[in-house]
């Protein structure tokens, strides 16, 4: 792999020199040839061969990069450019440059801060229980079980369910008058909760959809990592008299550290971009995230500004702020990882 990479790296260098290289090499060969036609053919063949060797890897990887440029990089840059303008979806031609105004206004925008706060709290109450449960479930699945394949596939089913289906079912379950959860709570003697109207209740409801969908996915990742832990570690721990719990705490968890960090990073990114679950939980006009925006995440606020109020410039600025936030989070995670490695 390493040598291939350096080949590619070498190949990148020559086109940068302006396509002069092949011509020079051809010139060196010319005096040795006697039959001009055969020489020409040979020259072409070797040229084609060289192009093939140098060019093919690019051709093979190009689909991804072409798609990335079209659907990843271009929107990113275009959004960044738009964020410096006052531009309305209703009149895209009338742009007006406003500098950093779309960013600075976010500091005074209470709707933005509310969305940021909601994104954070929903992120915490969905990610923390989710990862803890995933760890526990992975530990259980790591035992020799009857029908372990069934359980593993079952774990992945929620992940493969579409957000829309999951959110619709959960919205029905959290219904005020006819919801299953209120019905069950009613049997336990609790009054009816209007889940969507309250701040905490709505955020818990949204988080429960996220937890339901993603716990299995993380479980399988943990399970994969657990199966890579050498069994002699457990054996020696057992010989030293460690209980199951101690084995879990002092062997499994430390061995899983990189994986745990990975799932935290992925879950954090997912939580920052949370959109579908609260949007669908909100019902009609779900982008408001409730009448007091009590479960409006940054993703929903972006959508509301862009596609309900048609302020594309403001929406772009929110999008880029989210992107910068994610970079910040990634940096913090990187630092944490480095610190963990050092402390080991």
């Amino acid at each position: 792999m390493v040598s291939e990479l350096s080949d590619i790296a070498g190949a990148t260098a020559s086109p940068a020199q302006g396509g002069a290289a092949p011509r020079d090499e051809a010139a060196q060969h010319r005096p040795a040839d006697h039959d001009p036609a055969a020489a020409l053919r040979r020259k072409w063949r070797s040229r084609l061969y060289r192009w093939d060797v140098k060019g093919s890897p690019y051709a093979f990887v190009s689909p991804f990069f072409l798609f990335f440029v079209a659907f990843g990089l271009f929107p990113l840059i275009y959004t960044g450019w738009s964020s410096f303008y006052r531009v309305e979806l209703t009149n895209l031609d009338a742009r007006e440059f406003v500098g950093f105004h779309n960013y600075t206004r976010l500091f005074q925008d209470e709707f933005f801060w509310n969305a940021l706060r909601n994104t954070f709290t929903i992120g915490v109450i969905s990610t923390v229980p989710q990862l803890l449960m995933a760890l526990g479930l992975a530990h259980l699945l790591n035992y020799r079980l009857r029908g372990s394949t069934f359980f593993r596939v079952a774990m992945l089913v929620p992940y493969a369910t579409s957000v829309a289906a999951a959110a619709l079912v959960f919205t029905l379950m959290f219904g005020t008058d006819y919801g299953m959860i209120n019905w069950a709570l009613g049997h336990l003697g609790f009054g009816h909760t209007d889940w969507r109207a309250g701040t905490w209740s709505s955020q818990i409801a949204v988080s429960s959809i996220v937890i339901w969908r993603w716990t299995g996915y993380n479980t399988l990742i943990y399970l994969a990592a657990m199966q890579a832990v050498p069994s002699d570690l457990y054996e020696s721990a057992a010989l030293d008299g460690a209980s199951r719990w101690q084995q879990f705490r002092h062997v499994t968890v430390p061995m899983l550290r990189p994986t745990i960090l990975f799932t935290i990073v992925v879950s954090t990114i997912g939580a920052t971009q949370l959109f579908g679950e609260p949007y669908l939980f909100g019902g009609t006009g779900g982008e408001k995230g409730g009448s007091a925006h009590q479960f409006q995440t940054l993703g929903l606020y972006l959508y509301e500004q862009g596609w309900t109020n048609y302020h594309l410039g403001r929406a772009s600025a929110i999008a880029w702020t989210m992107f910068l936030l994610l970079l910040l989070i990634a940096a913090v995670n990187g630092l944490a990882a480095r610190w963990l490695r050092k402390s080991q």
Partner: protein
Amino acid sequence: MGTTTKSHRHRSRRTAAVALAAVAALGASLLAGCSSDSGNTSSPGSSGGKGKTTITVGTFGVFGYKQAGLYDEYEKAHPNITIKENVIERNDTYYPQLLTHLAAGSGLSDIQAIEVGNINEVVTTQAAKFEDLSKASGVDKSNFLPWKWAQATTADNKTVALGTDIGPMAICYRTDLFKKAGLPTDRTKVGALWAGDWSKYIAAGKTYKKSAPTGTTFMDSAAGLYQAVSNSYSERYYDSSGNVVYKTSPSVKTAWNLAMEASTSGLTGKLKLFDKAWDQAFANGKFASLPCPSWMLGYIQEKSGDSGKGKWDVAAAPKPANWGGSFIGVPSAGKNKAEAVKLAAWLTAPEQQAKVFAKQASFPSAPGAYDLPAVKDAKHAYFNNAPIGEIFASAAKSIPTLVIGPKDQQIYTAITDVGILQVEQQGKTPAQGWAAAVKEINNALDQ
């Protein structure tokens, strides 16, 4: 993930294979799920084979043209034309897409529908991108209600779209609940209860409440009442010169106060319109009445189901008002403009509007249709055979010419979904609800 393969256990390979197969199958079904959505947006404006011209019609929700057999009829009369409809379910997804297509000048259908909440914005900002239909052959201005025609016409007399339906309002009520609460059930007597004054509607609600069947309320929501009252004026969120005046406009103030009175007196079911809980309340007969524009009858029938058959009836509203309705226009970037204009003119002619009404209860914006038997004699079996043609036509004739503005929809949503809902569902005071709505509107209007 690659570490799974390190497992030495016997079954692991099969496990992995099964898991992979399961994931692949589910993944495939997800992709299939996605791709079925894209049926909405297939090749607009393309020409069909065999020299036929395909006219595409982009709509949201159910316009009823296909259901009323109008496309078939037109294709039969014009053998070289085929018509294809691209439907998007909800206008809040449809309209932003229309705007982006207009800006790009591609992806447009030959005919595009526009909802009344967006028509002013289209007229003020997108008029250059639509064909002028005022002078097109087959279009007769006198066929349309003057206010409907004016809503889709620019200051320099360019008509960008033709009116399809309007939403004259009545009050739909449940005779069984009215009877139990000691109110009259006959539709003329019911209409007389509150004729001419919305506050009499609330007074009737207070009478209802005194002996209301348990678990029911007089009306569904304060938001529906707010919408009905505010629309029965000629000025609402904008004045005629385009200034935002909702803070001082008498219609908004009256409507807000009445809605708040209804809500704080316990006359409303505190529901959000078009929400799941609203649907469930229809099915379970939880409220006795609601202001209903003509197009809502189908919705009520669907959600109330068989158990509500014969229990609903329709009475005249206190004041005539319009709620909803649409237009169709021909984008200039379309491929078959000439044919599309002809089709649009034909679809909005009184005869065709009457046919749509007979099928879909979308009320015609062409008064010429009101005297056609399909409208004049129309009765609705589900609603106790109420003479809906007569009720809605008499409302339609005296609907005030309402000034509409570009951001009507955002202002309306902020007042109902933020202001009113905070009072109804979160226990805020009316003053707090109003303050929240104003803040919301300021944020929505600020570019």
